Structures are given as C-alpha cells and as structure tokens.
C-alpha cells in the first residue's frame, strides 16, 4: 500500500515534469544543441577573443542574436496575456533603429539618440495602447495597421535610405550595447536578461502580473473587482513598444546601420512563436516570462542550427516550421497525457468486464 503510494507520487512528479511546457522547450533546446554538435564538433567550444574582449564561439553568437528576441518576446508575453497581440514590434524595431541612426548621423549625442529612440518606441506602443484601450479597437487589426504604418514611419525618418552610422564617431556606447562584452558574456544578452528579470520581478512581486492575467482571463469580471482594464491594456502595449525599441537598438547597433525594410522584418512572428513555445496561451491569461525567454533562446538556436547544418536557404522556412510543429505537438496535452489515457482505458475495460460478469 505504502509502496504503491510512493510509486504514485513518483508518477505524479514524472507526470508533472512531462506535463510542464518548459520541459519540452528545454528538451528541444538541448536536442538542437546536440544536433549542431554532431555536425560541427567544435560547436560547444568557447574561445577567448582578444579582439573583442569576450568569449567567442557559436553559442556566444547565438546568445548575441537572442537578445532582441528576448526583448520583443517579453513585451509580447504581457500583451498576449491580456488576450491581445502586438504585430507591430518588428516595425517598432525599425522605427527605433532609424531614429537612433538618423540622430547619430545628424550629429546628436549618442545618449540622446538612445533616449529618443526609446521614447519613440514608447510612443508607438502607447498609441497602440490608446487605440486598444480607449477606442476599444481589436488588438490584431490595430497593431497590424501599426505594423504597416511603422515601416512607413521608418522610411520617412530616413527618407527611404538605409542610414549608416558606422563611420560616425561617438557611437561607441551604442556599439558596445550590441557588440560588447560584460565579463566575457555578450553585453546585449546580459542587458536583455537583466531587463527580463526586472520585468519579471515587477510583474510578480507587485500585483501587476496578476492584474494583467486577470484582464486576459475575464475583462468584465476584472473591471467589477475595481481593476481598470483600460489602464492595464495601455500599460502592456506601451511596455511592448518600449521593449521593441530596445530590440531595435540591438539590431541596428550591431552593425550601426538601419535597414528600413529588413530591420525587424517578420520578427513579430518569431516573438509570438517564442511566447507560445514558452507556454503562454494566445487566448490570454496565465503567462510565463521564463518560458518566453526560453522560447526566445530556442528561436535564436533554430536559426543558428539552420546556419550550422548549412540548410539551403530555400528550405529554411520549412525547417523552421518542422521544429516549431514538433515542439508544439510534444507540448500537446494529448501527447503528455498519453500514458494516463492508456491507463484509464485499461481501467475502464477492466471495470466493464467486472460489470458484465
């Protein structure tokens, strides 16, 4: 009796681990790393690059790239938790990047350029927030419009050029932000991680997280408890805009050049994928920032895998789709309830036999 209890308990833990979305994300991440290591034996090797003053190696470039996904995925998580969506993050990245580069080229101080770029992101996010919360427009369509218009804004800022600030002196802090190292670890990854932790701490240590979830679960009931759903909605879109502008700085500062068409292109989709892989439902409600962060790293890792495996560029989207489908399918309740389901069926058969007898 006691023994079977213990076994049950053990089963419970195993089931819990299997049922946890994060588990499958970690498994996927490890699987991708293993695949890469098999193809490229030096994949896990880290060397010290005296040229840059940091670690070097495939994993490091992967982390460097993941910084921007971490930013937009974090903002996206909060937005999705309110049962919304922010399709404009890619465009906001372009706008923020364009702003900073154009200012630098125009001779502005680098800190001014950074601050104004962040402010612009915050403003675009706030406009999304206003449209969704005050006018009550549907998030999908509102941010879709902002995605179109945002690209246009980026083009207007640079007059359609791909502004290049790589030759401009004084851009060092910005360059460091994207390319530098802190204790050998990519600075942008460290910064992104710190921001994720701050957002996480604010969300979970104050009531912000619960209120965001509450609005996402049942907006009317939330209103009746004295929460102001409009304020919450405004807040999450504004945060998402701000974080997207940081991502935009990462993306442009890495090469000190904005590309009005390419910067941030399609990244909204990656962000959404990261959030979903991380276990937050697109229907809103409970969110997991840790899950989304892991999702963001997985997205970067998938892209790294594509390069490492030398997958033909034509086949890239198909490979991407395959990995995403596998991860999502593994997360499906049907799969991780498989053993429980089989047990249930067996029990049912037995009891039916008993009844028949």
């Amino acid at each position, binding site marked *: 009796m006691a023994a079977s209890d213990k076994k049950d308990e053990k089963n419970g833990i195993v089931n819990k681990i299997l049922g946890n979305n994060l588990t499958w994300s970690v498994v996927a991440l490890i699987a991708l790393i293993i695949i890469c290591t098999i193809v490229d034996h030096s994949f896990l090797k880290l060397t010290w690059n005296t040229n840059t003053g940091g670690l070097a190696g495939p994993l490091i470039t992967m982390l460097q790239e993941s910084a921007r996904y971490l930013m937009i995925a974090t903002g996206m998580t909060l937005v999705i938790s309110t049962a919304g969506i922010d399709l404009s993050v890619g465009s906001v990245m372009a706008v923020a990047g364009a702003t900073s580069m154009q200012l630098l080229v125009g001779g502005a101080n680098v800190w001014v350029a950074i601050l104004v770029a962040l402010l612009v992101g915050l403003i675009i996010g706030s406009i999304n927030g206003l449209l969704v919360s005050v006018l009550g427009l549907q998030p999908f369509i509102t941010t879709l419009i902002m995605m179109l*218009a945002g690209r246009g804004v980026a083009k207007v800022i640079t007059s359609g050029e791909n502004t290049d600030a790589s030759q401009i002196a004084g851009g060092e802090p910005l360059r460091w932000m994207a390319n530098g190292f802190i204790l050998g670890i990519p600075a942008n990854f460290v910064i992104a991680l710190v921001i994720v932790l701050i957002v996480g701490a604010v969300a979970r240590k104050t009531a912000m997280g619960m209120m965001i979830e509450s609005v996402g679960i049942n907006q009317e009931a939330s209103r009746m408890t004295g929460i102001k759903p409009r304020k919450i909605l405004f807040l999450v879109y504004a945060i998402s805009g701000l974080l997207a502008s940081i991502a935009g700085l990462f993306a442009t500062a890495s090469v000190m050049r904005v590309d009005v068409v390419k910067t941030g292109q399609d990244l909204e989709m990656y962000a959404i994928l990261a959030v979903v892989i991380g276990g937050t439902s697109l229907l809103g409600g409970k969110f997991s920032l840790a899950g989304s962060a892991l999702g963001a790293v997985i997205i970067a890792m998938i892209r790294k895998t594509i390069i490492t495996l030398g997958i033909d560029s034509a086949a890239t989207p198909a490979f991407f789709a395959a990995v995403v489908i596998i991860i999502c399918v593994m997360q*499906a309740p049907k799969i991780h309830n498989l053993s429980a389901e089989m047990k249930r069926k067996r029990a049912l058969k037995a009891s039916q036999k008993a009844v028949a007898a």
Partner: protein
Amino acid sequence: MTTATVNAPKTKKAKGGKFDAQMIPTIAAVVIFILMLIMGQVLFGTYFRLGFISSLFIDHAYLIILAVAMTLPILTGGIDLSVGAIVAITAVVGMKMLNGGTPAPLVLVVMLLIGAAFGLLAGVLIEEFNMQPFIATLSTMFLARGIASIISTDSLTMPANNNYSWIGGEGWKIIDNPKISNDLSINLGVIIAVAVVIFGYILLHHTRTGRTIYAIGGSRSSAELMGLPVKRTQYVIYLTSATLAALASIVYTANIGSAKNTVGVGWELDAVASVVIGGTIITGGFGYVLGSVLGALVRSILEPLTTDFGVPAEAVQIVVGIMILVFVVLQRAVTALQKE
C-alpha cells in the same frame, strides 16, 4: 418559496431591430466604398471608367476568393495565415507540372488537392494537438513557403497552348468601346470569384455547418455542449480556406501566366484586412462574406488612391495604414452610436 400568482408583465418585447446592429459595419463598408469611388471620380475622373472597374475585379478576383476563405476561420475566432503561402506552393507545383506536359485539368485537381492537404494538416494540428490556429497556420505557412522554395526558386512561365490560361487573361469584352479604358470585360477568374462568394454565402447562411461556424465563434464550449459537431466543422473550415487559397492561386496564375515561390507574400494580411474592413469581428461570431468581398474591394482601391493623390513613396504605407484605421474607427463609432 413564494407562490405568487401575479402575471408577470411579459409584454416587454425584445426588439428585432437591434439585430441589424451586426450588419452596420458591413453597410458602412458599402457606403464608404461607394464614397471612395465617387471621390476618386470627382478628383481624378478615372474611377467610373469601365476599364477601371473591369481591372478592379479582374486583378482582384484572387483577393475576393482569399477574403471569403479567410472569413471562415475568422468567424470562429481563428485565423488562417497560410493562405498566401498556399498560393505560392500550388502555383509553383502547377507551373512545374504544366511545363512537364501534364494536362491542365489534372494540374488543377492536383493544385486543389495540395491546398486541401495543407488545410488538413492545419486542422490536425489545431484539433488533435491543441495548437492555436494562429500558430498552426503560421507553421503551415512556413512549411508551404519552404517547400515551394525547395521545389523551385525560378520564375516559372506557362508553356504556350496550355489549356489553363483561359481561366484568366483578358476574358470577354462585354462592352467594347473604341478605347480600352472604356471596355467592360470579365474573365473566368471573376466568375469563379463570384461563384466562391455565392458558395460562401450558402455555406454560412444555409447549411448547418455554416451555423455551427457562427456558434463556435460565439462560444466554442457552448457549441460543444449543444452537441454541435465542432471538431468536424473546424476541419471543414481549414480544409475549405486552404482549398480556396489553391483556387485563388489558379485564378491568379492563369491571369499572369507565370508563378514563383515568392508569390503571395503578405496576402494573408491583405485578406485579414479585407475581412475586418468588411465588418467581421476578428474575435469571431459576427460577420458576413459579402462584407469581406466589399472589404477586398475597399482594400484594392487604397493603392490607386494613394498613387493619384501623389502620396510620397515613403509615406504610402502610413497612409494605407491610416486609411484602414479610419475605416475601423468609423465602423466602431457607428456601431457604438447604434448601441446607444
């Protein structure tokens, strides 16, 4: 427990008039479309030309079909992001087959089947593996586009005498004026689009499957508890939207006589915009196919208008975005006023 015997004053009749509120966004779409045409005509004098009207329909037959296709999942609160990519893969396969000498009817069937296969895959992911439609169709979108690029990245042209391009092309001139800009013409693509609209209308309003689509949009759990075949209907929806996307591909490729893996990038968003402009609510439950058709037409004349207004190139996207925004806000205002 009271045993009151007062007759409740049950005379307060629920007004049937309120029901029309759901149609207001669609009606607004009609009105605004006509206003836009009139504005174009007054300012630039070319919008009432038969040639303009003809090419509006011929060039956008594909978008009308996609808008109808997109209406189905959106009515349930879902979405099908894969339609653009399905156009690409079916187009590439179709052109390859035509060039390989496959008879046109067989090519058409294969294209539709490929579309259906992607719809089925989306359905399986959504219904069997609990993936949200957005993610499931995003995956099938990547998959379809990826496979299309693997098959070919060339610009594939149809062979001559292919028994295929007659679907598109110039079609028939109904009114043949001396000037081409005054000709009224129609081609099979437009007729197919009209047929699709009629099909969509009948499906949604005169079949149980259609009503189940609306019910799912209202509340999926209610629909399930009501004993409606929710799962089957979901399959029907994604199969239909993907197959219609293949049909849109047929109409489009027949029109331009060539195809390539990059065709249809962003069309899913054009289709979504059309559906929303047409008054369908993105969260599901309310909307009409006819609205989506009008939405597609409205979406289609945004570009000519920006061109004629001479909007600076960099700002075109902003203006298009703002126009859609104004549209959505107007609809929202009208609906809110009605509710008062």
